């Protein structure tokens, strides 16, 4: 157990693993759980009902688990769940969930958040994503496995970022970004409209596909996004041909986005508890949520 013997404030009720390291000037609130091997560097503040798993590194000045910046939030008991092996840069902020959005903000395993990134209420960040500097994730966003969001990206609320997709730096992401695609503004002064502008090669490499699957996926991506007109018809044609694996996932994703509001499928969940909340809330928290709803 190596705890730096400089001033820090840990509430007596907090459940901090003896193998966790809490740096100087850190503040840990009473409802916080911190797993073994997690390192909180200087001036980090963890408050709210926040559970942090093992082997995370949390940089200087991070504030995790503070109240949502949502005007509808009225002080209900909601949660921030952080998995294992995540890397947080400096001044990263993550909020707890809201009662109308599903009670939980969830960060999976092995994610990297660069400096000043913000994860707002009711976001679901899956595993192994890379999130760049000053990225703003607004409320109710889902980021799927392995997605890459580059620096200074503002993601609008209810957007879904697909598996192994990439959002180029400085791009306002106002609609869903399909899996395995590269989404960015054409010009570096952001004057070109943000759109799917190619295949995310790194993502395809990271997905470890068979040669055949990769070929099929590339063909589908080119067919759908080289010219984005008549997406619905093209998807129907693909589905009728009988697709499977990644291509089926891609078709399903795009179809969902098309059904959504302005290309945002999750916006259909507005005011409802999304299905992810049931998936990711641990059983003991489900009981707490049900009791508090009574």
């Amino acid at each position, binding site marked *: 157990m190596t705890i730096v013997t400089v001033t820090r404030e840990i509430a007596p009720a907090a459940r901090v693993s003896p193998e966790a390291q809490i740096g100087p000037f850190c503040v840990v609130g009473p409802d916080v759980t911190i797993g073994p091997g997690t390192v909180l560097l200087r001036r980090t503040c963890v408050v709210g009902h926040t559970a942090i798993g093992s082997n995370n590194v949390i940089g200087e000045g991070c504030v995790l688990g*503070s109240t949502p910046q949502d005007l509808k939030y009225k002080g209900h008991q909601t949660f921030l769940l952080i998995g294992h092996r995540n890397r947080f840069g400096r001044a990263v902020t993550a909020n707890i969930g809201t009662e109308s959005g599903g009670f939980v903000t969830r960060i999976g395993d092995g994610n990297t958040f660069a400096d000043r990134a913000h994860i707002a209420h009711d976001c679901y960040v899956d595993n192994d994503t890379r999130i760049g500097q000053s990225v703003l994730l607004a409320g109710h966003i889902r980021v799927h496995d392995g997605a890459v969001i580059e620096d200074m990206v503002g993601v609008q609320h209810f957007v879904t970022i697909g598996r192994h997709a990439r959002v180029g730096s400085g791009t306002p992401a106002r609609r869903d970004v399909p899996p395995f695609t590269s989404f960015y503004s054409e010009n570096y002064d*952001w004057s070109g409209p943000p759109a799917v502008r190619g295949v995310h090669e790194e993502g395809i490499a990271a997905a470890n596909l068979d040669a055949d699957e990769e070929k099929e996926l590339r063909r589908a991506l080119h067919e759908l996004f080289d010219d984005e007109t008549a997406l619905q018809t093209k998807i129907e044609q693909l589905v009728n041909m009988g697709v499977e694996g990644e291509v089926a996932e891609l078709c399903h994703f795009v179809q969902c986005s098309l059904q959504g509001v302005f290309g945002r499928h999750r916006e259909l969940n507005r005011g409802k508890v999304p299905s992810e909340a049931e998936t990711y809330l641990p059983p003991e928290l489900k009981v707490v949520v049900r009791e508090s709803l009574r």
Partner: protein
Amino acid sequence: MPEISPLAIVAKAAKIAGDVRIGPFSYVGDHVEIGAGCIIGNNVTITGKTVLGENNQVFPMAVIGTPINAAGEPGTCVIGEANTIREHVTVYCSRDKETCIGNDNLLMIGCVVGAGATIKNHGIFDNCSHIGPSALIEDYVRMSGFAAVGSGRKVGAYAFVTGYASVDRDAPPYSRVQGSPIRVRGVNTTNLKRCGFGDDDIRAIKSAFRDLYNGSSNAPRPEALSRLLKESNPYVRRLAEAVQAGFPERQSE
């Protein structure tokens, strides 16, 4: 009695009202006044000649009343009541002109308020929005993420500044502005409805915008402006006056 954490550093000369809460590792300087009911989180720095009114909430890591350069003389910063100042917000001040924040504003994470800026009441400023030095933000303004207001620029009441926009000339009241340089994209009807404007007023404002910015969405048309200045609807007149005062001399480009 104020509830000050033993780990906080509060200057003896600072005037702290009753029932103020100050978290650990916060620093409150000599010339600071904090009103009743304020909640100051941990690691907050409040320096300069800063006056906080009642019931403000300051979240961790915020810095209020810092001079532009560290060696500078302390400036004045006046903050009204019931503001929420979130994490990592920086409010600058200079000794030339006081920085003013009115009542009931929400400054979200990472906002920057420049020295000498004035924010009136009920504003909501999204993450990383920057308010330049000496800028003026009127009532009920909404700013989205990464939006910036240039120094000395004015954002009219009920205006909406879209994400990534940089306000390099005055934004008229009731408008929705977008881009860099900003363009007027329409009327902020959502906000007007939420603020209790009647349908007739909204219709009048919309038609005024259509007359002013027909087609170009950038330069207001002078003939429409002179007509709108005589309009009976007070909101439309206010819009015309604001456009007349702010826009023409800055439209040279």
